């Protein structure tokens, strides 16, 4: 199997990448480090199963993906099921009783690239993400960062499609509102303090 299957080199060669992969999805350093550790332990235990068809990196990422989903499942068990849809205050407050916009969505006219290149934008983006209820952020992360299809998320997280759609919608509505207020509006009114 050669040098690459030597566990002594895994950490040096892949540790930081696995950490960053986990950091994007879990959004927290400590949790990211924990799942990376679990990944290496599982890899060590299961190294006989490595078939050599994929690279070691791909194999390790495959294990990490499972650990990340396990982590989200654990999170979701801490939220009482009955509260899943009603626990957080309704973001649909942006609509009036007739379903019309109460808080008008702002115009985000410019080329996205103009924003995406700015460091300040990412700071606000991260803060908006951190401001989501954990449950919503976890599901958003599985969809947008991990790139799972909705059916896959429903299976993995034991959710109905309707429930998942509502939660992704709430996450997006909140994120859009947060960016609207804290980035786009503020930008129009002048530079950040």
């Amino acid at each position, binding site marked *: 199997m050669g040098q690459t299957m030597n*566990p002594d080199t895994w950490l040096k060669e892949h*540790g930081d990448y696995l*950490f960053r992969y986990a950091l*994007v999805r879990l959004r927290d350093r400590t949790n990211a480090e924990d799942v990376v550790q679990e990944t290496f332990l599982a890899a060590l235990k299961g190294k006989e199963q490595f078939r050599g068809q994929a690279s070691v990196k791909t194999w390790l990422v495959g294990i990490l993906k499972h650990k990340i989903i396990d982590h989200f499942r654990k999170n979701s068990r801490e939220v009482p099921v009955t509260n899943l849809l009603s626990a957080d205050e309704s973001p649909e407050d942006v609509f009036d009783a007739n379903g*019309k916009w109460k808080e008008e969505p702002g115009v985000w006219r410019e080329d996205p690239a103009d924003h995406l290149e700015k460091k300040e934008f990412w700071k606000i*983006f991260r803060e908006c993400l951190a401001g989501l209820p954990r449950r919503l952020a976890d599901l958003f992360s599985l969809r947008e960062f991990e790139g799972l299809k909705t059916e896959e998320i429903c299976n993995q997280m034991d959710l109905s499609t309707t429930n998942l759609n509502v939660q992704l919608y709430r996450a997006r509505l909140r994120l859009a509102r947060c960016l609207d207020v804290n980035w786009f509006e503020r930008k129009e009114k002048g530079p950040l303090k």
Partner: protein
Amino acid sequence: MITCEEASRLMSESLDRKLPLGKRIALRIHLLMCKLCPRFLQQMLFLKEASDHYKEEIEEDSSYSLSTNARERIKSLLTTDPEKKDHPHD
């Protein structure tokens, strides 16, 4: 006609799957008649693009790395050579 609230739900859903024809038409008609909802659609598309970008940036940013503590902890767990295990710094 569907309301803005319903339209906004469909816009979110359309990021996850192809909407069935009826919903797709209802949404398209709403978007033609409504001043505000096209803005929300633009926000949804932006959010999608920003999320992709965010993921790539962090995955490639070498300034994010395991802390020394975590690294040492994992290193000692991974050391397969029993002699080294007692002296992780050799």
